[in-house]
């Protein structure tokens, strides 16, 4: 059984984004799974409340690492256009997305901005508790230094791999018809 998580926090995305993602997952992910929405306002039977209410926005994605098992996470603003069963493989390694294709022009500013070359719109893991525990130990420092978990993971030398192949792309690359299209920062 695969746990499929999303996070809905605050008012940036309304409930329709969760429903659309759930419908897409049901259509394109045929492996046995449980859909779970991690949220500050639980209202559906698939919702569970956030566990660290002091955190804001994307940082709740990081708190999902307290959960073990075969886990997948999807941002609410991704678009799924085809079969995504390929994601249910090698859960033992924490995996996220290589954002180099749309970040290449920012490489020279990467270091001093604490920027990142990974993207966590989709994540896969089995046991990443240590990452979240370490974050909690110096939460204030990391929240001060990093604007989001992509930057935290990339700059704090957390071990990760990236999804291979060409099935995932970003709208920032000008691609809209891939199997999975990220709409990262489109709704910022």
């Amino acid at each position, binding site marked *: 059984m695969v746990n499929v998580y999303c996070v809905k926090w605050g008012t940036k995305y309304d409930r329709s984004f969760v429903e659309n993602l759930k419908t897409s997952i049901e259509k394109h992910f045929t492996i046995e799974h449980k859909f779970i929405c991690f949220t500050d306002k639980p209202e559906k039977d698939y919702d569970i409340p956030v566990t660290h209410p*002091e*955190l*804001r*926005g994307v*940082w709740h994605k990081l708190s999902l690492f307290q959960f073990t098992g075969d886990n997948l996470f999807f941002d609410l603003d991704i678009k799924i256009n085809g079969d995504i069963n390929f994601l249910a493989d090698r859960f033992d390694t924490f995996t996220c997305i290589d954002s180099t294709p749309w970040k290449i022009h920012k490489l020279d500013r990467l*270091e*001093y*901005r*604490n920027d990142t070359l990974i993207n966590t719109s989709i994540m896969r893991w089995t046991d990443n508790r240590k990452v979240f525990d370490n974050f909690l*130990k*110096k*939460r*204030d*420092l990391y*929240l*001060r*230094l990093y604007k989001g978990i992509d930057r935290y993971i990339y*700059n704090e030398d957390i071990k990760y791999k990236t999804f291979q192949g060409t099935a995932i792309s970003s709208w920032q690359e000008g691609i809209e018809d891939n199997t999975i299209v990220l709409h990262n920062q489109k709704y910022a």
Partner: protein
Amino acid sequence: MLDINTIEIIRKIFDRWPGRFVDVLNSLNEKQQISKDWLVEKLNEYKYPFRHKLKKDRISIMLLCSWYGMLAYKLIEKFNVKKIDRIYCVDFDPKSKMIANRLFRKIDNDNLQKGILTQVNFKDKDIKDLTKEEMSSCEIIINTSCEHLHQQTIYDNLDKCPSGSLIVLQSNNYHKIQEHINTVENLQEFVSQYQSHLINIQMYEKDFLDYKRFMIIGIKR
């Protein structure tokens, strides 16, 4: 115009800790300077018994969550009630000490030449791990980062301070910053959090237009 020393410090910080460059600049920004100057000004005015009773010629001060330690140098420059023996800067950021050394090296050297003997010691430590003995070694305990800390952490820390310690706390109502997990709405709310821990509380408020900064000075019960 920036002097050569300042430019050199900026260059070295950028070269050695590029990921900290913005954070270092933030720690020295105008609002930080105003908040720290304000703290020292009010601390100088506070009627604390050590003005008359404390036999020790020199006192020690502990700065909790001290960031890169700018407040320590404000205190050395402007605190005029007692001579300061040591200032302990406690922060769990392992890079704080190195960056502070680079930032304030020239001021340290200048102070020595002027005969100012105050030592600034960095402790790479979570304030949760401070012992009662460590807290007892200082007459004044300052925490300007209450909005960054769980309330229970602040209370636990205060509980380790001996009765009679002079306590300075700052917080704000700047809710939108992601690391501000424990903001308050107003000065009254801030004071009410500490009435059972402190006596002779003096309270202050400073308006920064987009938010207000609050400060209380009191004596540990």
